């Protein structure tokens, strides 16, 4: 990154050769010329392969989805029926479940992630404790998703269930909690589990953003008599705002595509219900549950179409985040 956007005149104090990023080391002739030439070609080929993976992936999934694309067209997006026997497929309940569960996750993850990032970067704690804490929280990212799912089924849901029953019986008048007798596997549980899973992403990126803010800003605010938290709220968070937004977007991208833990806790029932205590279904979950047994033809086509929609969703979110990061790093060249 540093090479790509550094202005050329920045290192003009160095001898001209050293300041030039594009030093040409290629031999033009001699015994090893062909080895070198071949090597260059090889490297370029492999770079093309990496790019091709993404392009071929889009094409293959689009191709697989063809039967369903032809049959249902764009109406697939708001079709609400999913009937394997009668070959009628609609994506809306799955899209709804994916978006809502990710939205719940990101709502929980943003404040908690920022809190973790602050605690692990703002000298609240000795440096060794700070690093250890950051490392421990990053360990969550290393836990396989299926194990988090297993844990939530057997340990987390029994803990959460009484609370959800209480919410349902006392706050029925709020549409969000209007369910008769919630069992533990529902949208809210899935959202919380997703929040736990995307926290390391959110916290780590926000931490990097906060650490990148120049010391002078901090010192200046402190010198004017602000307390630590006034500095954080008035200086650090506004300065890191775009970085934090892109952290949230990357975390959102992860939440949208997360499969195993969600499949195990969301209840897998394709319905659209305002209540968060009702079971739901997401695109990754239906792929995980049905793909292996699906009949080639329209069913596989519909599932691939869902995959394509998910691909598009995450692609949009991730490209947005990448562009934002680039824009952010260009703007903040101190």
């Amino acid at each position, binding site marked *: 990154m*540093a090479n790509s956007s550094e202005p050329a005149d920045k290192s003009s104090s160095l001898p001209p050769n*050293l300041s030039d*990023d*594009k*030093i040409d*080391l*290629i*031999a033009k002739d001699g015994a*090893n010329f062909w080895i*070198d030439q071949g*090597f260059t070609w*090889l*490297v370029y080929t*492999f*770079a093309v*392969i*990496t*790019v091709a*993976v*993404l392009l*071929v*992936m889009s094409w*293959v*999934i689009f191709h*697989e989805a063809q039967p369903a694309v032809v049959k249902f067209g764009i109406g697939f997006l708001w079709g609400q029926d999913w009937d394997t026997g009668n070959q009628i497929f609609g994506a809306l309940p799955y899209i709804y479940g994916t978006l809502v569960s990710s939205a719940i996750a990101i709502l929980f993850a943003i*404040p*908690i992630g920022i*809190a973790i990032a602050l*605690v692990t970067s703002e000298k609240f704690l000795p440096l060794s404790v700070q690093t250890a804490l950051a*490392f*421990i929280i990053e360990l*969550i990212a290393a*836990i*396989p*998703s*299926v*194990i988090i*799912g*297993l844990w939530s*089924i057997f*340990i987390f849901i029994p803990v959460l269930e009484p609370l959800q029953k209480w919410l349902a019986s006392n706050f029925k008048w709020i549409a969000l909690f209007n369910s008769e007798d919630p069992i533990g596997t529902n949208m809210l549980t899935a959202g919380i589990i997703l929040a*736990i899973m995307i926290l390391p992403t959110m916290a780590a990126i926000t931490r990097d953003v906060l650490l990148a803010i120049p010391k002078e800003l901090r010192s200046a605010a402190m010198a004017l008599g602000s*307390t630590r*938290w*006034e500095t*954080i709220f008035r200086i650090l968070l506004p300065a890191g705002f775009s970085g934090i937004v892109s952290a949230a977007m990357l975390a959102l991208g*992860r939440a949208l595509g*997360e*499969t*195993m833990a969600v499949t*195990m806790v969301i209840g897998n029932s394709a319905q659209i219900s305002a209540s968060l205590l009702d079971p739901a279904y997401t695109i990754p979950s239906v*792929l*995980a549950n049905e*793909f*292996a047994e699906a009949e080639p033809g329209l069913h596989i086509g519909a599932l691939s179409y869902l*995959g394509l929609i*998910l691909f598009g969703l995450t*692609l949009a979110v*991730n490209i947005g985040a*990448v562009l934002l990061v680039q824009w952010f790093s260009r703007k903040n060249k101190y």
Partner: protein
Amino acid sequence: MSGYQNSEINESIASDLYRPLPIKRLLFTYGMNAIAFALTGLVLIPLLSILWEIIQRGISGLKPEMFVKSVIDYGFGNAILGTITIVGIASLLSIPVGILTGIFLAEFGQSNLIARFVRMITTILTGVPSIVVGVFAYGVIVLVTKGFSAIAGGFALAVIMLPVIVLTTEEALKLIPTDQRLASAALGGTRFQTTFRIVVTAAIPGITTGILLAVARAAGETAPLLFTALFSLDWSTGLLTPTASLPVLIFNLYNDPDPQKSQLVWTTSIVLLGLVFCISLLSRLIINKTKTK
């Protein structure tokens, strides 16, 4: 401090300076401290609970013979072998491509348009959901070979590992000072010699870290294996037959009514978690070692 106490004027300045914060600001400070620490502590609970429960529930069932028995006989030998096979295939496919693309980004492209494009595609590739990668592998391998297989699973995991390896290799190569490249070139080294004998050799710890991180991530992946490698209760008979793996074992059997099978699920979790944590810790150790040099 004692200097202030000598004169009356300075004492008033001192008392001014040391006047405590107004109660509102003080409460705000302490309140926010409490909130931040509480939220951070909140996150440690699930992590510790996961580790504790899995060890407590699984350790009693962990017996050496499980490593040589297949799932049918309540062991996880075939799943371990399957995971190793699938991750091995994935590594064979992704490591060469990943390292050479990393070399391209760090040594050849640097800041030109193509490199920026490749880098952007690679970053986007890291964000593609693993289940979508599974759909891709299904279309490319399962439909063509007409069967679920370890190769299809390996292909899916390779796509997941690839961007991790590319980006970490690039970072590792960038840390090698330009002077070393110039020195090698000045001695008459060609670009091939410079890259492989000097730059890549010096960056091996960093590249290894990237590979380990990618392997750790791939070993725990479940979603893309569900419909590429599928699962088998018994030892798999070849690379083109359905193959068991540790994460899929957990997913397939966690609701099994057979108590011995549900015990097996917890024991498998210990092994999988231990495997993934060991690889992650190893990669972190390598990073720390190279940093202190």
